[in-house]
């Protein structure tokens, strides 16, 4: 007695048509690590499964002077194996290796990880720090959404029921340095207790520009605007970084859950942030 239907679409157009017809009942099936689990747990009880794993148009990697565009259906493993990613986004490449475990990386997709909008989505902090944006498509047209405005709440994004995330665009980082750190409760596959990603641009030993994003400390992955503002223009010293990192407490609202208490997340995310900044700045941690 199944309440589900299945579509193997010919191309992206067919996906968009199905989403137009089904709305929220059109369920994008990519890696399956989230959706199939929700179905088994009866969190999702009916709908049309739209398999996007065979669509080459969602697996493109486009390289330009301005930045890189990554197809939403690329798996984490696809990204790790991409020569373009390794060359142009080396810190992103390193961060991707922290994701899950090899079996999960072979299935989980970039688009799926973002669209699922978990507070601990592991691709989000570093993409936020890199000012990424997502490409969204529907039969009504296409639009670009800054990743910083993409997440609305736990499991919620700005995607409308008829929309599909098709690609992620990452601007070129120039001579910025990027770093992501993740804290898990074991060395193997671990949901992040908290994670911190930073992008820092120095000029004459001063912080010319900085982006900071955290996971696991709010309903969505978040930017730490207070700390960013406080660091701008400051000398890039260990003392300065550690002092300003303390302001992180203003930007986050962690909860207590099975993985840790709010207090622990508050304290340890400050430490993680300091480390990420110091490492990115090329300093002794």
């Amino acid at each position, binding site marked *: 007695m199944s309440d*589900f239907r*299945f579509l193997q679409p010919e191309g992206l157009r067919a996906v968009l048509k199905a989403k137009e017809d089904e709305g929220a009942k059109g369920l994008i099936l990519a890696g399956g*690590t989230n959706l*199939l689990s929700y179905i088994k747990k009866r969190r999702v009880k009916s709908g049309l499964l739209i*398999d996007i794993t065979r669509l080459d148009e969602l697996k493109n990697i486009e390289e330009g002077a301005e930045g890189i565009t990554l197809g939403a259906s690329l798996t984490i493993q696809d990204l790790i194996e991409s020569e373009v990613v390794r060359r142009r986004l080396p810190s992103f490449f390193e961060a991707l290796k922290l994701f899950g475990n*090899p079996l999960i990386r072979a*299935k989980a997709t970039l688009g799926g990880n973002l669209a699922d909008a978990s507070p601990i989505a592991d691709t989000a902090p570093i993409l936020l720090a890199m000012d990424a944006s997502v490409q969204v498509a529907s039969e009504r047209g296409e639009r670009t959404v800054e990743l910083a405005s993409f997440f609305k709440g736990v499991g919620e994004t700005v995607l409308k029921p008829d929309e599909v995330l098709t690609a992620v665009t990452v601007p070129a980082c120039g001579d910025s340095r990027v770093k992501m750190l993740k804290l898990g409760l074991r060395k193997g596959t671990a949901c992040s207790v908290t994670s911190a990603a930073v992008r820092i641009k120095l000029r004459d030993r001063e912080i010319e520009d900085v982006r900071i994003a955290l996971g696991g400390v709010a309903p969505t992955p978040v930017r730490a605007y207070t700390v960013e503002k406080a660091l701008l223009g400051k000398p890039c010293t260990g003392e300065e970084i550690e002092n300003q990192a303390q302001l992180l407490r203003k930007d986050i609202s962690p909860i207590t859950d099975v993985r840790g208490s709010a207090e622990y997340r508050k304290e340890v995310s400050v430490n993680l942030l300091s480390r990420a900044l110091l490492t990115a700045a090329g300093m002794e941690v």
Partner: protein
Amino acid sequence: MENAVYDVTVYVNDRPVKGRVPAEQTLLDFLRDNNFTEVKKGCDNGDCGACTVILDGIATLSCCTAALQADGRKVYTVKSLGTWDKMHPLQEAFVKHEAVQCGFCTPGFLMTAKALLDSNPHPTREEIREAISGNLCRCTGYVKIVDAIEDAARAIEETSREG
């Protein structure tokens, strides 16, 4: 209650296996329903790796894959690896090194290890540990599994040099 079912053909160990399945049926359930019970259901949630098969050359969690996603594609289970008379070097190494105790996780580990050695014939112990980190074992403590995979890699290399 729509009760839609779909035709599917999956090439399992080079044999076409046909079925009529609902949209949400996993590849794991499809395989087990078709008597490929060597593919194990340990958690049905992507956490343990016992259901690992090789799909299009990639070690894949069959519990996180819809059967229909494998339509027309090639899936390999541990039974494709070797036979009683001629085991794969990985299988021989697992036996020799006592990398098997209860054996329930073993088919999944062997598939992950096979996919690893196909893409990286000379992995370090650290690379092996990383590659198998999605497969859980509760009996062995992993040391002998790493030993076995390392030894199999060496044995495969020796055979290919001799060949």
